[in-house]
């Protein structure tokens, strides 16, 4: 089989891993080497499904001894199989990098023969890159469930990020759909890497994981509680959510497919937890899902309408960022601008702040909305209507 065919098969098999971040890296080029990481992260292109391509995301092999029901590479699935050699993959990576196609490598794999055997082949690839080619670009390595501690340690020293996919929010679901995996062999590597990070002087990769959303019936509440736990304990830097896409011949999975919007709402909620000081209990009710019609910040505001309206000329930064439609950058802009004059709606527009959503929740000299009734605001935001407004000034634009 030629390399192009392999690449097609092994990229196809890896595409359901949603993680593509190359950000947060601090690696600098060593003398005589190639590459550095770029902290803000960068997208090198976007595929026709609108997803960012930042890394060469491939499987080392799609041969797999496991039989996880949600996975298209499972042992019982009848698909074409292929494997790279470490040299082939290292050469593709370095040549793509020189042409500026990618930020680095995202290497996952099916499990061929044994977890250790697979992990060793992956590490061999990475060592060719790091040691022989002196490659300092970004590398994300998947930790193979069941691989030995020594190999996991080696991986977390060579990579910028490592990950182990929890896949399902509860052990019960995991047992049902992935009989060869268990909580221990997916979680332990992550705990182990956290300990390394806490006790090592050297740089150790950060960690992430991925959950499949909608293949089983756990609600968003359970998912976000789990995410919060990992963030709080500093075990993970990021959690990825992947709306379930049907694979053929499933026994236990009854659903057709999960709406992408649910995945999107989870990411929004995740952002609120990581960057906006929200607690998961504040944004999602016990044992239920997020509101699909409204983004979680707006949903929060409507449930806590007594906290609003917020006066943009007086509110603290913390209060401002709780306003739907005002993010961290806009909050800073408001604080800077109000030092020179009392802000009115027209000033906000001039600052480039969209008040379409925010107007319901703010006072800028006067209340900019029409009514603080949650039912009214909900309808207005969903329909994007401007009917019934008491002012016409904004129509100028």
């Amino acid at each position: 089989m030629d390399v192009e065919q392999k690449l097609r098969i092994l990229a196809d098999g890896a595409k359901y891993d949603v993680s593509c971040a190359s950000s947060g890296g601090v690696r600098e080029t060593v003398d005589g080497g190639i590459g550095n990481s770029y902290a803000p992260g960068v997208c090198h292109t976007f595929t026709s499904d609108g997803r960012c391509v930042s890394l060469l995301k491939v499987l080392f092999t799609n041969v797999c001894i496991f039989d996880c029901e949600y996975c298209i590479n499972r042992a019982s699935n009848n698909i074409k199989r292929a494997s790279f050699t470490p040299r082939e993959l290292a050469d593709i990576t370095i040549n793509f990098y020189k042409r500026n196609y990618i930020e680095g490598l995202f290497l996952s794999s099916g499990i061929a023969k044994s977890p250790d055997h697979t992990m060793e082949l992956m590490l061999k690839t990475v060592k060719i890159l790091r040691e022989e080619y002196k490659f300092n670009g970004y590398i994300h390595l998947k930790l193979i469930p069941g691989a030995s501690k020594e190999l996991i340690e080696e991986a977390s020293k060579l990579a910028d990020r490592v990950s182990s996919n929890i896949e399902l929010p509860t052990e019960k679901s995991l047992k049902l759909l992935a009989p060869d995996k268990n909580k221990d062999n997916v979680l332990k590597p992550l705990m182990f890497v956290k300990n390394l990070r806490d006790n090592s002087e050297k740089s150790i990769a950060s960690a992430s994981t991925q959950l499949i959303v909608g293949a089983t019936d756990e609600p968003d509440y359970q998912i976000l509680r789990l995410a919060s736990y990992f963030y709080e304990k500093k075990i993970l830097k990021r959690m990825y959510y992947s709306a379930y896409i049907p694979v053929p011949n499933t026994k236990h999975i009854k659903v057709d497919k999960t709406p992408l919007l649910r995945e999107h709402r989870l990411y929004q909620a995740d952002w609120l937890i990581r960057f906006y000081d929200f607690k998961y209990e504040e944004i999602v009710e016990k044992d239920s899902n997020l509101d699909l019609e409204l983004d979680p910040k707006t949903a929060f505001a409507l449930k806590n309408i007594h906290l609003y309206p917020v006066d943009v000329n007086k509110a603290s930064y913390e209060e401002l960022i709780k306003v739907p439609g005002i993010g961290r950058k806009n909050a800073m802009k408001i604080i800077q601008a109000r030092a020179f004059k009392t802000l009115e709606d027209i000033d906000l527009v001039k600052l480039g702040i969209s008040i379409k959503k925010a107007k319901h929740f703010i006072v800028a000299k006067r209340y900019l909305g029409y009514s603080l009734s949650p039912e009214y605001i909900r309808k207005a935001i969903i329909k994007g209507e401007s009917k019934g407004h008491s002012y016409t000034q904004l129509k100028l634009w």
Partner: protein
Amino acid sequence: MVNIIFEDSFEGFLSALFYAFNNDIKNPLFLKAQKPSLFKTIKVELDENIITIAKGFLEEEIIELFYDCFCFDEEKAFSDVYKSFLFYMKNKHLKDIHKDFIRNLTYYRKSVNRERHKYIGFLRFHKLDNVLYARFEPRHFVIDYLGEFFKRRYQEENFIIHDLKRKKAAIYYEKRFSIEDFDKELNVEKDQYQELWKAFFEAVTIKERTNKRLQNHYVPHYFRKHMTEFDN
């Protein structure tokens, strides 16, 4: 109105700013090259020490802001920088974002930074004999920034980043870096990694989720002309 022609570099532009300020010129229009005009035209020579002089009057971060706006590479940006410069000389700050010309600076800088960032990802290099060659047609003057970026990334390589629109290039050859006028047409040939890249690009797409509108939003068509994976 007075046309002020400056030498096409940031130092040249700064020299012109100080010239107009020192000579108290009313309504100057800053231009990179001579244009037919009814108005009086003054050509300002580059002052070799201009950066040192500027540092005596302007904070470092103001100079950086002016630099980013200079890279916007349009006359209205030059003129807003001048107005901001006058404001700064008087008030010693540029924080009053209720002034249009000050607020515009944020816009220019944002636009320039956005394009720099996009091209860090979207620039495509071709492997010629002993040099990596990239060509593109950016809206703003970004090759100096990209040159510095790729100098760190490809420190052992030689490269040319060619701005076809401005006929200039950032050249890094045997570890020496420079920005030069560049009007050569370099031939690029297909190589196997381009084909592999196209194959990869196709294979990572999730067909069930095709969303061309979203793709167009992130990679507008004007970027695609020089990107290997898009058919041109």
